């Protein structure tokens, strides 16, 4: 290649001195405990403020439970999220963006079957402006007919785009497989439903559902908590409703069973998606489950990744993780693999699920994930945006900063027996259902041979 003489790979990998010992860990300095405030405002909104002044920015998150059982709810709520920031009685769409930009700010809205989320940030000196725009939108969004019509058209196109993404196809199929027709399964509305949504329906949904009681807001940044509380209380004083926000109806438990093969003609890679029932963060067994999941497939040095990626090269992307809804949780296992090794990757995944319960993790495996869980919590909450996102998701479960502070101690207390119990309880292969998306013409014979897959 570029030089005529070079060492061999063998020579490069050795030095005269030989291998060296890995240095031990030093002493960990504790995080500074930030000043926090957790209160309920006059309008019923729960507010958490954390002072974290590393940079002169403030991060804002607002979570409004946004459940609904009408078949048209997903389409209406998606159009609402897309048009919420497109103008108020006081501000045009352009003025909303201009006012935010002048304080270095931004706001965005998104919705899923559980909640409407508004997130943003600004220079801390512009918090009053950020709140003023937010309050204006919450109390005065006009949903102009032409904005609704245009965003509706864009949304139909975006649904088509998303529907071509293998990850989206797989998610939709998995949701249907594990939750049937429950509202949680309708994460993306049908294009035909979106096309029918009117501005009046969106305005009505806003009145009914975008309400403060039952909702939570988080501010993290270079702010004085009490001062920020007063600013929010005043700015959002006009955001009122006599009823509380709507929680999603409870989810059924995920039942184990065969995977469903979903045909995607011409696919060169398949999506494996498995799921089983788990427990929420409030369950005393949760810390053990968290660590057990890490050992299985929750980080790079896990059994699943070391097997199907680093040993066998079946995949670039494999992982397992927990998904939380307000009252429950589920366990998910994802892998994307080439068509010719899909069945083999599924076989190894099942093997690792079974092995986790039958050959419980060693002490080293447990200590590694314990340190990883404690350390990654430290790292993810060291930034304003990371802490804000962490707190808003805890707020949705009724948890708070104290839970976060106490979590390292709970992780430290988990024993090998706790992990062995969690492995056998939650990772049993028979507890999982799921889907395989791929080219059925290339997958069916092998999947039929290993069994446990419904070819239909």
């Amino acid at each position, binding site marked *: 290649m570029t030089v005529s003489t070079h060492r061999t790979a063998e020579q490069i*990998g050795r030095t005269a001195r030989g291998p060296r010992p890995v240095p031990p860990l030093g002493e960990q300095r504790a995080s*500074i405990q930030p000043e926090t405030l957790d209160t309920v405002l006059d309008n019923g909104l729960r507010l958490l403020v954390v002072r974290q002044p590393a*940079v002169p920015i403030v991060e804002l998150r607002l979570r409004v439970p946004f459940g609904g059982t009408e078949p048209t709810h997903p389409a209406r709520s998606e159009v609402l999220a897309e048009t919420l920031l497109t103008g108020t009685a006081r501000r045009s769409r352009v003025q909303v963006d201009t006012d935010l930009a*002048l304080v270095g700010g*931004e706001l965005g809205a998104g919705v899923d079957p559980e909640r409407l989320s508004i997130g943003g940030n600004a220079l801390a000196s512009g918090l009053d402006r950020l709140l003023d725009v937010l309050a204006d939108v919450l109390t005065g969004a006009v949903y102009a007919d032409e904005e609704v019509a245009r965003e509706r058209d864009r949304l139909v196109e975006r649904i088509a785009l998303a529907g071509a993404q293998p990850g989206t196809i797989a998610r939709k*199929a998995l949701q249907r497989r594990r939750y049937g027709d429950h509202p949680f399964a309708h994460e993306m509305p049908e294009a035909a439903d979106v096309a029918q949504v009117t501005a009046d329906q969106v305005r009505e949904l806003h009145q009914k559902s975008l309400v403060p009681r039952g909702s939570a807001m988080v501010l993290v940044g270079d702010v004085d908590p009490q001062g920020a509380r007063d600013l929010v209380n005043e700015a959002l004083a006009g955001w009122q409703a006599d009823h509380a926000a709507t929680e999603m109806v409870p989810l059924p438990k995920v039942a184990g069973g065969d995977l469903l093969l979903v045909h995607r003609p011409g696919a060169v890679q398949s999506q494996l998606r498995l799921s089983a029932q788990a427990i929420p963060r409030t369950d005393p067994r949760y810390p053990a489950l968290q660590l057990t999941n890490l050992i299985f497939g929750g980080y790079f040095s896990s059994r699943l990744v070391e097997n199907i990626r680093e040993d066998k090269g079946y995949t*670039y992307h494999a992982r397992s993780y927990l998904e939380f809804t307000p009252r429950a949780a589920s366990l998910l296992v994802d892998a994307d693999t080439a068509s010719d090794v899909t069945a083999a990757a599924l076989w190894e995944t099942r093997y690792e699920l079974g092995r986790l319960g039958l050959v419980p993790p060693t002490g080293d495996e447990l200590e590694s994930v314990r340190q990883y869980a404690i350390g990654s919590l430290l790292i993810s909450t060291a930034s304003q945006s990371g802490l804000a996102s962490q707190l808003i998701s805890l707020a949705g479960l009724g948890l708070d900063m104290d839970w976060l502070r106490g979590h390292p101690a709970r992780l430290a207390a988990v024993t090998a027996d706790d992990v062995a119990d969690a492995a056998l309880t939650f990772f049993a292969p028979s507890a999982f259902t799921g889907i395989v998306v791929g080219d059925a013409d290339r997958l069916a014979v092998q999947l039929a041979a290993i069994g446990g897959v419904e070819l239909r």
Partner: protein
Amino acid sequence: MPSPELHRYTLANGLRVVLAPDRTIPVVGVSVHYDVGFRSEPEGRTGFAHLFEHLMFQGSESLEKLAHFRHVQSSGGTFNGSTHPDYTDYFEILPSAAMERALFLEPDRMRAPRITEENLRNQIDVVKEEIRLNVLNRPYGGFPWITLPSVLYQTFPNAHNGYGDFTDLEQASLDDCASFFDTFYAPGNAVLTVCGDIEISSAEDLVQRHFGDVPARPVPVRPSFDEPRPTREVWAEEIDQHAPLPALAAGYRMPDPVAELDNYLAYVVLSSVLTDGDASRLQQRMVHKDALVSDLGTACGLFGSPLEARDPDTFTFTAWLTDSVSPDRVLGALDEELERLAARGPDADELARVTARWAAGVHRDNDRVISRTLGYGVLELLHGKPELAAELPARVARVTSEDVSAAAKSLRPDSRAVLLLKPADENLTEANPAGGAA
């Protein structure tokens, strides 16, 4: 932002070091940037720089395969690496108790990576899965970063696919790896950055202890990758088997990011004026007023962020077209808006918006140790000046309306590359997410 107290020096073996203490967080970021990216990989070996990045995680003299990952993660940390046109980075973010670990792991592979045939074959498989995931099996995979350069540029370093062709990847040999390492992975061709909860003198001691005896090796002379600009509008089309709607990208040459930084920043401001937020020119015109596109963006650099490459760098315009709209209409609207800006630059309010958002964006990047660490490393490597991180907001604020006008004027139709992505026959691409078949 904590005013960064940067400490820069060079070890005897040529390794450049940037120390950036910030005692407000109990976390440390460690990164090593090597001055080699996919523009430097040899013909017939497309994708090799990225494949080699994978191999650097596969063990070194003191570390068995998988040990690197295990040591970082069992210390509570996270890691990754990435390959760019002009550099390859490796990094760890850890609780500060594990700083010395990272300062051990990086030099071990800088000194003596253990590259074996078995690991090479395994990682070729993994990289092919990565390409299937990110490119081949999804709509708009690699659009436009993989294909636009082949339209805008003529020479192999600038024009080829940095992810690589499967045939080239499969031919990679152990000898290619040894040659690549000995040529490009010398300590004098790298920058070490340590950022976060460190104390300068003890960090210096640890850096010397672990990196000091990595032997100096010759540093390759870096070639210029400059080439003539296009003298006409160059068009190309690609068919995407998975895409439901057409998409369009245009690429333009830009000023040299290093030699002409302030000129370059005028394009950064131009990009924001054009597409950053609902009040931006092209969002208003093409998305909201004329509804020509369902989404669009402009960017300095092929990967969405400015100042991550040397010359030549690319200004990109990307749009997802609504079904019935012709590419010519979209390009026509783009050219009209650029001509308007060329005739009369943005007003004071538009510039103030860009400046404030840029300043806030820099603060937010700085709040995350990972982006701060990598930012200092890149600026040291490409500009020899990590302090630029703190200077950039003020320099962006000094960009004038006339500067933006001049930048807009330079984005001429007759010197750009246009790439049109077309969906394949829809009957073949229709997926069936509801299940069934087979």
